[in-house]
């Protein structure tokens, strides 16, 4: 984090704190309240309520809204009715510190309700406007004694916790009860009791019991009966369990929420089923792949057996590159095979002759084998127009249709690299050079055959691995170095050398995005070659970097590394690079080892073929 970022964050925190404090200060200025902490009103009589606004200063005018429940209360007078349930009070405050007004309401039904003051805007004579805190007050509408029910029973059973003052009950019943029989007795004989429709449907039923006296006072009792569904009625006892207050979940629109629930469940089930199908299909595919692999392996074993036996009798073109190891073991055998070779083209002949001599040479070479590549075959299995999406692969899995195309990137390649050799690997694009390198460096495991090499000694030199355009040169040196395997201390120590070699002094704190491509590759080369000479060095298209002058420098560096006694593998498709640097060359074409031997010969063969 740079310094200005820190500053900004500090400012942001401070600002938010300030805002918070500010809100509190302004809110302390004025507030609204009611004349009393609670009200008890009786039915059908006009009742007053006092509303006050208090402020520290003299107020010019006050504007507020008073909310009430129009189902319980009816607004009579005092302010102006904005709409049902909202009264607006807008008045001058007469430059007093306290403003008061009376509103009148008439209760319609029994029960408890609330009146709320909100959106209180105070305007001061100075023109300043401010918002005051709102307030709420509870209001109880008392019940006329006469109308209260003495008892309430459903289907002959009295409600367990019936209380005359409580007007709402919930009840669960069995699915086989068609009709609720309700007996309600009022306190006074004067009161008339009316009961709404009592037939029960599945789910929630609302029954209202209205008890009214002659004076017009009335109490409405609400009874919610939940009738159980036919299937799930097993565990429900007929015992009534009235709840004192209706629960939040059994609000209005229960039918609606049932629908929603079932839709949700449907969607969920569908999703789960889809996911299960996908998983099943994938597993099926995996299992079948495994089976196939086994089959292929068996086949391969079979193939290789027959091939080997075949090769012994009639030397095939592949024998152009006799396995040095075999020769080494039994020179007599090698001599027998070599003359029997059938030259397939003129230059092959040259190469062969030369190679024989080379093999002879390597026969008496007592240097250690640094890299041994034996019968390496690399098979890539591609599905024809490969399924890159699950959908496709599922369809394929079900159709049982799999067009697996086997692509052999390397076919039975064998060679040996001696300690201190500088070997060039040449071949056209896509001939399998990179695959070979990956196998040698251990990134890939060959399908068949094996590579014998001490993987710890290998250093793969590639340019700009993990270079990131958004980072500065300096950061990239560390990232790249880490990826190649340098420790932090090592990079710290060699940093200056790297910069110097790459000739990038003064550019290191700039983003690599702004570098030229030559600069990037120079930096990459410098990082990759700064380390002490490794025992095995693999150079993947490294030697054609930068301008002429840098190329000279880099070639010198590589030469120096080679002189250090390390074994070097150079991959290139430029014959001149290989001629200049190598003492042995390997030509691979379409996965087949075409020639091994003296760089001049191999390169000539390669060039001829190209034409």
């Amino acid at each position, binding site marked *: *984090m*740079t310094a200005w*970022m820190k500053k*900004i*964050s500090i400012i*942001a*925190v401070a600002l938010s704190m300030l805002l*918070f404090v500010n809100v509190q200060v302004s809110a302390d200025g004025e507030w609204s309240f009611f004349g009393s902490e609670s009200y008890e009103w009786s039915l059908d009589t006009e009742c007053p309520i006092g509303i006050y606004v208090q402020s520290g200063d003299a107020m010019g005018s006050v504007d507020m809204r008073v909310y009430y429940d129009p189902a319980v209360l009816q607004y009579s007078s005092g302010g102006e009715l904005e709409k049902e349930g909202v009264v607006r009070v807008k008045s001058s405050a007469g430059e007093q510190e306290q403003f008061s007004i009376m509103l009148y309401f008439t209760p319609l039904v029994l029960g408890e309700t609330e009146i709320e003051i909100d959106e209180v805007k105070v305007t001061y004579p100075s023109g300043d406007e401010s918002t005051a805190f709102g307030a709420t007050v509870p209001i109880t509408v008392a019940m006329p004694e006469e109308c209260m029910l003495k008892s309430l029973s459903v289907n002959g059973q009295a409600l367990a916790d019936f209380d005359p003052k409580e007007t709402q009950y919930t009840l669960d019943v069995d699915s086989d009860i068609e009709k609720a029989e309700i007996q309600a007795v009022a306190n006074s004989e004067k009161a008339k009791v009316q009961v709404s429709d009592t037939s029960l449907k599945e789910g929630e039923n609302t029954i209202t019991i209205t008890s009214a006296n002659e004076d017009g006072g009335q109490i409405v009792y609400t009874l919610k009966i939940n009738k159980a569904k036919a299937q799930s009625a097993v565990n429900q006892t007929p015992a009534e369990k009235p709840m004192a207050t209706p629960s939040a*979940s059994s609000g209005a629109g229960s039918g609606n929420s049932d629908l929603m629930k079932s839709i949700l*469940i449907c969607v969920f089930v569908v*999703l789960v089923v889809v996911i299960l199908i*996908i998983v099943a299909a994938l597993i099926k595919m995996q299992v079948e792949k495994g089976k196939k692999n086994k089959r292929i392996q068996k086949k391969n074993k079979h193939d290789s057996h027959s091939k080997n036996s075949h090769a012994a009798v009639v030397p095939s073109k592949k024998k152009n590159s006799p396995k040095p190891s075999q020769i080494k073991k039994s020179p007599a055998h090698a001599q027998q095979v070599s003359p029997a070779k059938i030259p397939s083209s003129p230059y092959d002949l040259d190469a062969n002759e030369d190679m024989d001599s080379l093999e002879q040479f390597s026969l008496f070479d007592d240097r250690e084998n640094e890299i041994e590549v034996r019968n390496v075959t690399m098979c*890539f*299995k591609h599905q024809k127009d490969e399924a*890159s*999406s*699950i*959908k496709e*692969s599922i369809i394929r899995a079900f159709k049982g249709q799999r067009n697996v195309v086997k692509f052999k990137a390397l076919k039975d390649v064998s060679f040996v690299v001696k300690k201190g050799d500088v070997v060039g690997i040449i071949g056209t694009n896509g001939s399998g050079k990179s695959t070979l390198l*990956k196998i040698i*460096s*251990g*990134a*890939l*495991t060959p399908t068949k055959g094996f590579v014998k090499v001490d*993987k710890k000694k*290998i250093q*793969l030199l*590639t340019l700009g*691995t*993990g270079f*990131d355009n*958004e*980072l500065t040169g300096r*950061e990239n040196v*560390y*990232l790249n170095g*880490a*990826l*190649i*395997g340098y*420790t*932090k201390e090592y990079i710290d120590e060699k940093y200056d050398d790297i910069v110097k070699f790459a000739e990038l002094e003064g550019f290191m704190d700039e*983003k690599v995005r702004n570098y030229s491509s030559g600069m990037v590759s120079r930096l990459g080369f410098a990082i990759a070659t700064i380390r002490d000479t490794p025992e095995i060095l693999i150079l*993947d298209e490294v030697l054609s970097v930068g301008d002429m002058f840098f190329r000279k420098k880099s070639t010198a560096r590589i030469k120096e590394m080679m002189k250090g006694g390390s074994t070097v593998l150079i991959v290139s498709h430029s014959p001149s690079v290989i001629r200049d640097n190598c003492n042995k060359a390997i030509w691979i074409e379409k996965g087949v080892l075409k020639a091994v031997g003296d760089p001049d010969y191999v390169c000539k063969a390669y060039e001829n073929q190209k034409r």
Partner: protein
Amino acid sequence: MHKETIEKKNKNKEKREQRKQYFFVIRELTSREIKRKYSRSYLGIVWSVLNPLLMMTVLSMIFMQIFNRSIENYPIYYLSGYVVWHMFTGATNSAMTTLVDNRTMLIKVRLPMQVFIFARIYTALVNFGYSMIAYVIMLVFFRIVPHKTIIYFPLIVLFVLIFSIGMSFILSTAYVFFGDVKHLYSIITTVWMYCSALFYPIDRMTGLVRTIIEVNPLFQYINATRNVVMYGVWPSWLETLVMAAWAFVMLEIGYLVFCGNKNKIMQKI
């Protein structure tokens, strides 16, 4: 005998050095991820702090109305869940694509593939650290006095990390073979988020949904975080055991899947 012990010691030393090297690589990769993430923005890393705060503000404004009574300190309630949840999704989402994103490096560099996954997880952890700044600011702001139980919090974070690593192994393997795992997973995380009681109280839920939520490991972690930070309640032994079991079982499965397919991944890439 003596020689053997020396050899062993050397081997151990080598291993330790290698591990150190891997950690260095992970750190470098992580710093790259972070620098890159914010390389074109002016506020940069401050976004990591601002993001949870903004999310919290918006959601609080909406849901405070609804859950006012059942949740006190809704912003903190939400933020506690959000930081944990965000670390998990951040880690798994970025780790899922890491093998494909870094294919060139994977081929050319001799590093175990896990390193790239760990780097993304570590990135998520660092981001989590930044969002902790926001969290602490909010705790101070709402005057929540930290309880003793807060020392349990790092353990929860560790469990979530281990769980994420396990998930990441599976996801990154799957993503190499099927690109649409990414899209599928984005849907799954959405469903998962709703099943984690991130912004509503668990008491509201009943029946099947509630069972799903309670089984959900992420809910366990989020719930434990809230208990530990807001309410000062120690998680029970059973809860700890369940959380640890989820984490390590997931890691084990993920690792098995990953190792089983290592070679195939290399070929495919």
